[in-house]
């Protein structure tokens, strides 16, 4: 069936893709935000230490004997060393003249006030962060500007940042994984009611047309409503046709009763062979049509009941005995003996007793009809491993090989049955009953004795 369904996309896949994309974007954003925040934070702390170092150096500048001395305190550099193995550079200028340190350090930006100026540059092929601060001193009444620059390479910072990035990336991936997991679960659980509905509809019998009564989410109200409406219409149309067939069969049979009766009475009064032959043919034709009407009705009933299978425990042995006793008079009429083997122990099958009986009666009726007079029909019920098997065998002509595969189709009769009244619906009915009960009808010919063998299998209750 799925072959004829035109598929486009999948709600679940779409949901998962959307949820995962969202999760990935969020994770990346988180990574970027946290990383830049960490970079700022790390840069800020380097800056603070550099500023402290510069301040310490500037603080140590003093005027001694009218001369400027800068006694760089040990901790001014050691506090920088705390960060890492980074290299530290410095330069001290007085009124723009280089005093000490690394003369070729990049020139700081011009001072606007006394607050430390930060700057990122490169020196000696390495990226550095430099802080410059200026202090105004008064030497011999002259204003002097001492400018101290401390610079530090940024290995440590980079390492720290790389570490933080790794951690944050880990967090991001973890976040993504968890979000993805929840996304998939959410998508699945969103689809679940749909799956359940599909499951419960496809598990139904051939056309169990009851409305869906299990609770469904609000979003599916329209779908289930439409489904129920559709099934209701189908059911109504089915039962309309049942009624029509029942009514038609009844209407056909009632006048046929009169016609047949008249024909039989006439036959008794008629002596001329050709007239007798004509009346006989009339009666045969009446039998054909009344049988067809009856079988059509039975078939409609079987289809209807199969679709609305009312399951109860049915005792197959008793059912078979009843069916056999029902056909005994018909068998007697033709001197056919019924050879019946039914186990004493009860065998239960889950099913509709009326349908099962109908199937059995059809098989027995066939066997008796197609048997030559003075022959035997064998009815055999036996329990097999997984179910029960009812075999009906006769000594008739058997099923024509060429027709074997199609005898269960509607209105198909064997090529060797022209002389026997029949509707071509008997085996169709049997087959439908078997299938409605999860069973099967097997047709074969008896290899040695000849004759037909119909085997009906039903799974155990």
């Amino acid at each position, binding site marked *: 069936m799925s072959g004829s369904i035109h598929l486009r996309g999948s709600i679940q896949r779409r949901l998962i893709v959307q949820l995962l994309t969202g999760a990935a974007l969020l994770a990346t954003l988180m990574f970027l935000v946290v990383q830049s925040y960490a970079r700022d934070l790390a840069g800020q702390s380097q800056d603070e230490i550099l500023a402290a170092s510069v301040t310490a150096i500037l603080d140590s500048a003093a005027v001694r004997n009218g001369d400027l001395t800068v006694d760089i305190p040990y901790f001014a550099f050691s506090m920088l060393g705390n960060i890492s193995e980074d290299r530290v550079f410095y330069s001290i200028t007085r009124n723009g003249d280089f005093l000490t340190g690394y003369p070729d350090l990049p020139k700081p930006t011009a001072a606007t006030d006394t607050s430390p100026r930060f700057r990122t540059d490169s020196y000696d092929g390495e990226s550095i962060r430099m802080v410059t601060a200026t202090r105004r001193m008064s030497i011999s009444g002259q204003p002097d500007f001492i400018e101290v620059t401390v610079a530090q390479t940024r290995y440590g910072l980079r390492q720290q940042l790389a570490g933080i990035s790794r951690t944050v990336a880990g967090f991001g991936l973890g976040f993504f994984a968890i979000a993805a997991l929840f996304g998939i679960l959410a998508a699945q659980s969103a689809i679940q009611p749909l799956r359940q509905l599909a499951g419960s509809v496809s598990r139904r019998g051939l056309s169990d047309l009851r409305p869906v009564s299990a609770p469904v989410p609000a979003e599916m109200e329209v779908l289930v409503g439409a489904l129920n409406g559709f099934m209701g219409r189908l059911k109504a149309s089915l039962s309309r046709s049942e009624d029509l067939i029942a009514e038609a069969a009844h209407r056909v049979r009632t006048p046929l*009763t009169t016609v047949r009766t008249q024909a039989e009475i006439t*036959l008794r009064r008629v002596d001329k062979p050709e007239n007798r032959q004509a009346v006989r043919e009339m*009666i045969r034709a009446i039998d054909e049509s009344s049988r067809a009407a*009856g079988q059509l009705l039975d078939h409609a009933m079987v289809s209807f009941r199969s679709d609305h299978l009312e399951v109860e425990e049915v005792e197959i042995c008793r059912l078979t005995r009843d069916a056999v006793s029902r056909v005994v008079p*018909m068998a007697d*009429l033709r001197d056919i003996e019924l050879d019946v083997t039914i186990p004493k122990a009860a065998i239960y099958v889950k099913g509709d007793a009326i349908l099962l009986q109908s199937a059995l009666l059809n098989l027995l009726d066939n066997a008796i009809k197609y048997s*030559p007079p003075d022959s035997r029909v064998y009815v055999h019920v036996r329990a097999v491993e997984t179910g029960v098997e009812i075999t009906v065998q006769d000594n008739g002509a058997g099923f024509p090989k060429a027709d074997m595969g199609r005898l269960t189709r509607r209105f198909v009769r064997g090529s060797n049955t022209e002389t026997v*009244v029949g509707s071509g619906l008997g085996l169709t009915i049997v087959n439908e009953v078997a299938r409605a009960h999860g069973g099967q009808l097997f047709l074969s010919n008896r290899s040695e004795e000849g004759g037909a063998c119909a085997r009906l299998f039903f799974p155990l209750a």
Partner: protein
Amino acid sequence: MRYLLVEDNDQLATAVVDRLSLDGHVVDRAGNLGTAEDFIATTEYDLILLDIMLPDGDGRHFLQSHRAARRDTPIIVLTARSEVSDRVGVLDLGADDYIVKPFDFSELEARCRAVLRRQSGGASNVHSFGDVVFDPLACTLTVHGRDIRLRNRELRLLEIFICAPEQVFSKSKLVDRLFSYDVDASENAIEVYVGRLRKHLEGAAVQIVTVRGLGYRLSQS
């Protein structure tokens, strides 16, 4: 045997009465349930043939009250309602069998016989003619104290003869009675069954005589 036929269709009723009478049965016919009750109150029947749709009610109610009153006269339901569930329903209500209209009179006869056979605990309906005794329910023919078991067609043929001894039956009439409208209905087949009966009757003072050009009759020598 005494039958009660409850059927409102006159043609069908007449035909059934005729046919059953041929077999030597006595048949009362009631056209509705009221008449049927009257008949039952005064007469003991061996078998009731009951239509379902009657002018004054549903035959199934009759069936139910009949069983509720613990009357055990067997009942065969004649129904034009051919739904299987309906048919099974009448069995549950206490019918002994049912037959769907339009029916073959041979089938009706066969069903009556089967029900009577099941029912009768020896209630005999024995015919005797000459030195033979014939029990159609037990399917036996007794010739000089020797019981012979008859097959169905032999039995029905003998029944036809023994119900009207000395009457000549044409082969074609016998075909009608014996084979209904079977394919194997041929006048030659009648000869086969007459032959079998003759064999069973060997040594008896009763014989089936061929009346040339007309048919057969049962006569006492």
